[in-house]
Structures are given as C-alpha cells and as structure tokens.
C-alpha cells in the first residue's frame, strides 16, 4: 500500500490540473436554456415511453403471429409427411386448395358449417380423436361437443369450432390426416349480414320502447298504471334480451364455424398389411409408426403451450435488454 500515491495527494493533483482547464463562460447558461426549452412538462418522455411500449408490443405480436403461422404450417407438413410414410396416397374427393380461404373484406358475416365423415384404420379411433382435437386447437379453435364409443363398433362424433377464416384450413388438415379415408364431406356457408342488421334494428327499437316505458313507469301515479306499465316493461325487456341473444349467437356463429366430424373404424381385415410383417420389419414399422404418432400428438397438444413459452421468453428478453435501452433513452 505504501507504494501508492496517497489519496490527498491525488486529490490535490487532480484539483490542480482541473483548475487549469478553462470553463466556457456561457456553458452553464446554455445548459439552463436547453433544459428550459426542451423539458416542456414531460410530454416528450411520455411520447417516447408510449412509442417504445407500442414498438415492443408490435414486435411481440409479430413474433406470436409468426410462431402461430409456423405452428400451423409445421402441423400441416407433419401430417403430409406422415401420410407419405404411411403408404400410397388416398383420394380425398376433391382437389382442395391448401391456401387459406379468402376472408370477407367488406365486413360481411358468414356462418359456415360443415360435416366430415372419416374412416380410420382398425384400433386407431382414439388416436384419430386426438388428432382431430389437435387440429382444432392448432387452428385456434376448440372441441364443442364429443361423443365417442370404443365398444364393438367404435365410432366418434366430434363437433369442432374453428375461426371462420380457418374453416377451409381445418377441413384440409383433417382430410390430410394419415391413414384416413374420407367417406363424405359437406360444407355450407350462409351470409347473415342482413339478418344481423335486421336484428340490430329490432333491438334498437325494442330498447327505445323499453326506455320510454321506464320513463312512463317512473311517472305513473296509480297502482293500476304502475302494474300495467310494469308488465309492458317486462315484456319489452324480454324482447330486448331475446334480440340481444340472437345477435350474440349470430356473432359467435360468424366468428367460429362449426364442423361435425364423424369417425369410424375400418374392419380389422382392412387394416394395413403390417400384421403380415414379421420379425425386424414389424418391429421397425411399429417403432416408426409409434414415434410418428407420439410426435404428432405432442406437437398438436403443445401448440398453445409452445407459443406461451416463446412469448414468455420474448417478454423476458424485452425486460432484460429492451427495458435498459428504453430507460437509457429517457435518461
């Protein structure tokens, strides 16, 4: 420690050289002017914070959207590749385009429904049900109803709801499930735009009438008048509720299309010739088939979880790296 220059000496040395550095005569004045001219009630700060937050949100939204698209694409590719592995391609009863369907751009409300009758290999009904569920979830939808029978004649009726814009995509993906034969298929689309407008007009009229009746009720003097008007208010309110319910229903139907999927198993004799294999060939086929099924199931089930995890990672990244940048920008 004795080799070091002592602190008081250093303070003195630094003071001496610094004191000889000339200070701009008007520097402090300029600094004050800068502060006065550019710190108008913190508006710029808020604008920068808002801009930073919006930019961050846009980046995250872009990541989520990209991942969602990627997930859908990979799911479709996975199904296609699995199908290629499984054997010769099957007919699907129509050359459907795989591209996303056109979405109404004029604000039209379309209610889409459809049915799909699929036949799956023997003893694979449970797996097929999982795959159908996976397709619905992967497209941002859900299973609205499900009835399965794994008895002597295994069948399943599943109603899935998927966003209208992805209805065609859902059918395409279900058609492309491995080892599935399409027995029947139907689609129906109804434009309910005018119906919605009509019901909305009725709702407005009913609401006005109810409100007017409420005013009358508030001014009623006699018991008879009160009872009479109250009954009419109750009737008007019921009509309002009913109309609002219809609007809500049409909104839901035009937001999520409904697809009824019927699954049935082929007879045992119709199963692939795998049972005819033996030894290493059979073991290899079983292993490959099992691996593919498990991976597909995991991908289908983990779609949403994967996005959440990636979103959380993006958020952590934002907090760790973007926040200091934003903070530095404010300082």
């Amino acid at each position: 420690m004795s080799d070091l220059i002592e602190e008081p000496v250093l303070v003195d040395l630094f003071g001496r050289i610094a004191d000889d550095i000339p200070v701009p005569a008007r520097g402090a004045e300029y600094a004050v002017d800068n502060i006065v001219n550019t710190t108008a009630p913190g508006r710029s700060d808020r604008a920068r914070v808002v801009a930073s937050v919006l930019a961050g949100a846009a980046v995250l939204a872009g990541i989520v959207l990209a991942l969602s698209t990627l997930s859908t694409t990979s799911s479709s590719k996975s199904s296609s590749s699995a199908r290629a592995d499984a054997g010769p391609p099957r007919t699907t009863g129509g050359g459907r385009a795989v591209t996303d369907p056109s979405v109404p751009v004029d604000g039209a409300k379309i209610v889409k429904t459809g049915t799909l009758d699929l036949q799956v290999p023997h003893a694979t009904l449970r797996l097929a049900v999982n795959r159908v569920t996976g397709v619905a979830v992967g497209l941002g939808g859900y299973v609205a109803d499900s009835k399965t029978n794994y008895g002597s004649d295994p069948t399943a009726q599943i109603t899935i709801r998927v966003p209208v814009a992805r209805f065609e995509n859902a059918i395409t993906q279900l058609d492309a499930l491995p080892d599935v034969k399409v027995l029947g298929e139907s689609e129906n689309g109804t434009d309910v735009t005018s119906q919605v407008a009509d019901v909305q007009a009725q709702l407005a009229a009913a609401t006005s009438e109810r409100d007017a009746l409420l005013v009358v009720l508030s001014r009623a003097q006699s018991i008879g008048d009160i009872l009479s008007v109250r009954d009419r208010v109750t009737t008007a309110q019921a009509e309002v509720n009913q109309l609002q319910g219809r609007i809500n229903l049409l909104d839901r139907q035009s937001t999520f299309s409904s697809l009824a999927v019927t699954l049935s198993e082929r007879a045992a004799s119709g199963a692939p010739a795998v049972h005819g294999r033996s030894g290493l060939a059979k073991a290899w086929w079983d292993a490959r088939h099992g691996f593919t099924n498990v991976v597909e199931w995991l991908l289908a089930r983990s779609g949403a979880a994967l996005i959440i995890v990636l979103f959380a990672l993006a958020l952590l990244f934002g907090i760790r790296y973007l926040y200091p940048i934003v903070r530095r920008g404010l300082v």
Partner: protein
Amino acid sequence: MTDQGAVQEEWVRARYARTYRTAVLICGNPADAEEAVQDAFLRAWRFRDALPDDSRRDAWLYRVLVNACYSKLRKEIPRRERERVRISVDADVQNQHLTEASEQPDRVAERALTADALAATLHDLPDGLRVVVILRYYADLSEREIAIAIRRRPGTVKSRLHEARRRLAADARLAAYRPDAEVNAP
C-alpha cells in the same frame, strides 16, 4: 424568472464547472466534453425530481455524463488519436501562466510539469480505470456514488481505484509523488 427557472439555473451553475472539467478529463477534448455536459444536464434534470436527495441526483448526473462521454469515446475518434488533456493549450491559461511566471517562475514551471505528467499518465490509463479515478479524486464522488455512475458494483469500483492508483504510482513521471520519494512534490 420563475421559481422553477431559478432552481434550474442554480442547480446547473453550482455543478457546471466541476462537471465540465470532469468531462474534459474523461473525453480528452473540450468539444466532446461540452456536448456531453449539455446532454447530461438536460437528461439528468428530467429525472431530478424522481431522486430522493442531492447525493443521488449528483451520482445520477455523473452517470449520465459518463455514458455520454463513453459514447463520445466510442464513436468519435480512436483512442490513440485522442487529444491529451493539456492545460497549456488554451491561450488564456498560457497568459495566466506567463503572468504568474513573472512572480514565481519555478513554481509555475513545476506546476505545468506536474499537470503534463498527470495528464499523460491519465491518457495512458484504460477508460474504465481513468473514469473511476477522475470521479473519485476530482469529482469527489464516494465509491458508492461511483458505482451508481458507472453501473458497477462497489467492489468493482474499489478494485479499479486500487489498480488505477497502482498504475499512477508505477509511472515514472509521477514518481516524485510516491510516499517513498525522497522529496515530495509541492
């Protein structure tokens, strides 16, 4: 002038000279230092009310200043081309020295030599060491305040200070200031 304006002016004027000289010592040239200081005062003022006491406010001011200086050091000019802090470059200071020289020529000459030696030694220090030693021995910040200013742990500040002092002491140009020197500098 409003009360707020008076507070701003008082706050800036009380700190301007020391802050500016600190910036010159760190940046190595007056032009960069002036820009860094103006930027630092502006930014530090925005957060002034959010900080509880003058000590932390000053630490925050120096933090902004150090960032601004680092930014200048990174993008302006390569280190080897940086101008050394030479107190004799300014004409006014030269005149002042000449005036003093007529009275105490030996002392003024020694003073200039000391300043040159320290400036040269400082110039040779890495940025990380130079900044902490300037903040400690010129800006008079505590180790904790320096830690805030350079966004490092107090332990890091302590070790950097020790290393900087070791290097200053090892420099032959400042040998006269070591405790074991026979004749200490004035």
